[in-house]
């Protein structure tokens, strides 16, 4: 797998030339467009999955293609094809530029710049996709053994490893020519625990942009034990309470709160269209002074990190909320241009078959000063939630949900009985105002997040220290 130069990879594989691509861009902007870009992608993905103690299935998928985009004012023209030839590109450019036909006024898009010293956040000696299948099978077998060793009540283990190698190459009418090689490793473990005919599950996992071998540093077995532990805890879980109460979130993955409650509402497209509950609220207070939230695509090896976004802009660290005050939006090129705001390196897309849009990378709250034990001790009666499934938000009303998969009651400052999973619901623009305590124990998640927006999925990260929220609605069954 040639990983050293995306440019050479695409030009050789599809017998293209730099001059040919320039001519295609010329066709694309010929009607007076503001901007045009070409996005080439070649992705190889491999999976191996274990159940009932053996790896019974493996898959390997190759996708490839190119998308031609033309921007004119607020209009996007796009044509994509998985057949990559100069003829196809020329046809695609003619299709995409139709958008520029009736445009009236020119909009100044942020000037192209030579990408700043490019990040190099996830260089690997050997791409994970090249890891021998036998090694993947052996790793899964160790996970199965580690999970079953936790307790005889673990009756089944489902585990999967997913390896991805994505080569992208962006060529723009603004002179940006940049490639990126993106490795991605993912491991997930689900354990089923059974006792007296009652079955429960626990799920854990993680990954990132690092070599396959990193999974063998002990974390694979740790994930297995965590999944088993969670399944066993849930065997004893009682029905969750219903109603508004104090909620303490554990560190790490519960940061999905920030992703749903805050992050989506600060994406540039919704704010340009003025359909976000955060519209026009830059500079206003949306959280307690304890809350500083950032989106940072530049953390080495993280699942949500990128050297450049899918428009060729280097990623960066963007302060979204500083001491409770709203500071910034997440932007792609189109929306930054229309709003007259700086690029933030958040223009992402699922694949060549999709238009880019503003998306999060790694979104987290900075650490506070309190010991997590003190935060729990401060609560007389409430819920302590440490692990979550998915979440969702209604950008316009600001209402968001996220669903706990491991939670406990807090009674008299002590963590007591485990409760069954329940959905938590709140209002994005005011939930952070209710944060009264922030722990010193910031953790980023293990690398499991996938964000969906407008039908496009991209890998993301979240992070959170232990926090206390004074009043969040817990959707259990015990009214």
């Amino acid at each position: 797998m040639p990983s050293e130069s995306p440019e050479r990879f695409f030009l050789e594989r599809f017998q293209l030339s730099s001059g040919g691509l320039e001519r295609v861009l010329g066709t694309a902007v010929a009607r007076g467009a503001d901007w045009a870009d070409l996005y080439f992608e070649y992705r190889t993905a491999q999976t191996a999955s274990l159940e009932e103690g053996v790896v019974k299935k493996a898959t390997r998928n190759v996708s490839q293609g190119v998308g031609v985009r033309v921007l004119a004012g607020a209009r996007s023209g796009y044509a994509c094809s998985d057949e990559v030839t100069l003829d196809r590109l020329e046809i695609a450019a003619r299709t995409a530029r139709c958008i520029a036909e009736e445009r009236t006024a020119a909009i100044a898009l942020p000037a192209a710049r030579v990408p700043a010293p490019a990040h190099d956040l996830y260089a690997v000696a050997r791409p994970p996709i090249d890891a021998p299948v036998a090694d993947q099978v052996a790793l899964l077998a160790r996970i199965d053994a580690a999970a079953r060793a936790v307790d005889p009540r673990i009756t089944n283990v489902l585990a999967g490893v997913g390896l991805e190698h994505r080569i992208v190459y962006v060529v723009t009418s603004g002179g940006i020519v940049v490639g990126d090689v993106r490795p991605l490793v993912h491991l997930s473990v689900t354990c089923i625990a059974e006792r007296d005919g009652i079955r429960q599950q626990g799920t854990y996992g993680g990954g990132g942009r690092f070599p396959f071998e990193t999974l063998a540093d002990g974390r694979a077995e740790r994930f297995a034990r965590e999944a088993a532990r969670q399944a066993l805890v849930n065997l004893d879980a009682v029905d969750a309470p219903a109603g508004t109460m104090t909620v303490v979130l554990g560190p790490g993955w519960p940061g999905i709160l920030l992703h749903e409650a805050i992050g989506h509402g600060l994406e540039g497209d919704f704010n340009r269209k003025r359909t976000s509950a955060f519209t026009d609220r830059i500079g206003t207070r949306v959280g307690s002074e304890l809350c500083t939230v950032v989106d940072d695509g530049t953390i080495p090896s993280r699942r949500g990190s990128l050297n450049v976004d899918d428009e060729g802009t280097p990623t960066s660290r963007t302060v979204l909320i500083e001491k409770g005050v709203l500071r910034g939006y997440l932007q792609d090129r189109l929306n930054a241009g229309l709003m007259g705001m700086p690029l933030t390196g958040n223009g992402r897309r699922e694949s060549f078959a999709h238009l880019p849009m503003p998306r999060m990378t790694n979104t987290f709250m900075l650490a506070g000063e309190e010991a997590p034990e003190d935060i729990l001790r401060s609560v007389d009666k409430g819920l302590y939630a440490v692990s979550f499934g998915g979440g969702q938000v209604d950008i316009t009303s600001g209402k968001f949900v996220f669903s706990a998969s491991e939670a406990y009651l807090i009674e008299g400052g002590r963590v007591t009985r485990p409760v069954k999973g329940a959905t938590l619901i709140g209002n994005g623009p005011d939930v952070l105002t209710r944060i009264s305590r922030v722990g010193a124990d910031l953790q980023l998640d293990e690398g499991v997040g996938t964000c969906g927006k407008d039908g496009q999925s991209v890998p993301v990260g979240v992070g959170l220290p232990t926090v206390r929220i004074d009043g969040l609605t817990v959707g259990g069954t015990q009214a």
Partner: protein
Amino acid sequence: MEPRDVARDLVARALRAGARAADAVVAESEGLAVGVRLGEVEKLKRARQRRAGLRVFVGDSTAIVSTADLTPEGLASLAGDACALARATAPDPHAGLPDAADLATTLPDLDLHDPAVERVEADDAIGWANAAERAALDAGPEVTNSEGAEFGSDAGAVAYASSLGFAGAYRGSHASLSVVPVATRNGSMQRDYWYTAHRKLGALDAPAAVGAEAARRTLRRLGARRPPTCECPVVFEPEIAASLLRHLAGAIAGGALYRKMSFLLDRLGEEIASPLVTVIDDPLRPAGPASRPFDGEGVAQRRQPIVERGVLRSYLLDSYSARRLGLRTTGHAARSVGDAPGAGPTNFYLEPGPHAPEAIIASVRSGLYVTELIGFGVNLLTGDYSRGAAGIWIENGELAYPVEEFTIAGKLRDMLRDVEMVGSDLVFRGSLACPTVKIARMTVAGT
């Protein structure tokens, strides 16, 4: 090469490369999407995709490979790659193709393809989207903004071939139009949406009707309050009730059953729901959104009762899960190009009952009418259910005021049993279709 010939060729290559059996799927499609917002074109997209997937059985070991590289060189390497990958996995005595006796022998014409969908011009699509959005914006002064309106269409072909000698293909088309208006009152915003979707262009609802309905749904959310935490009857409007069918389908799908990850394990032939509940799966419904002449393994299709007056009559099985359970495939193999088949529903619907939706609402003294659900709080292993919701509070049999920021929770086992009324208002829009449904009691968590 035609897709069916590509699929046949891949199967032949797999056998030459050492596979005992193999099957292949080839899918191709071309699509158009346009988006408008506040009367201006925002997006025009054309996409073209063609993919081939191959599953091989080497001895009893399985692997699946797929590619978008359909050049002779790309296809030539696929079979060898698949067999090499299979040799790295463990044998599974249940692995294999379906029983040849179950394969489709005739392919019914289900009216799945409308050539007019392929001929849609961008300008027409823009016109329909604009008309739909315009109708929403004109619905009243409180409709102040819009996320936009979109028209999308795609048409293509799916081909399947296997080493049992089966080779079949069919063409299909889809078109849809949707609108997302935003309404404002006292500085607070609400949005909702509406859509129309069909395989045939001419069967879509009129753009103005789609826009007007989207506006009606959005406007009725303005001024929402939070409901009290309580237990009460819950009425699901049809669009939302269909999500309950999705959970039912997930819990009786072969993969969940043989892995023992379903709350409906071992319940075949037993009463799992109220006697008011009869659920049908019909893959042969003419022009149905999920209709098909054969399933993802070439198996013949038929209309089947899944739940009859509350009694579970059939699981949804592909050939692998059927062998695992000691049963016969029910023809529910769902297949994507790059993965092994799983089992899932086709056109899956709840038979309508005798009640007008107004009569169902009138039967509730104090309770909830749910118009939106968000989040993923459903555990099919335990049946625990807890989701974010929005809707309208019912007071003395009438829709009284909108409510938001609350959850509804219960256990799917109880919810199915507690179906108290089923509406007469079944409309086939998506592949899962449901009339209005009333559940006797659920927990609402609000203030």
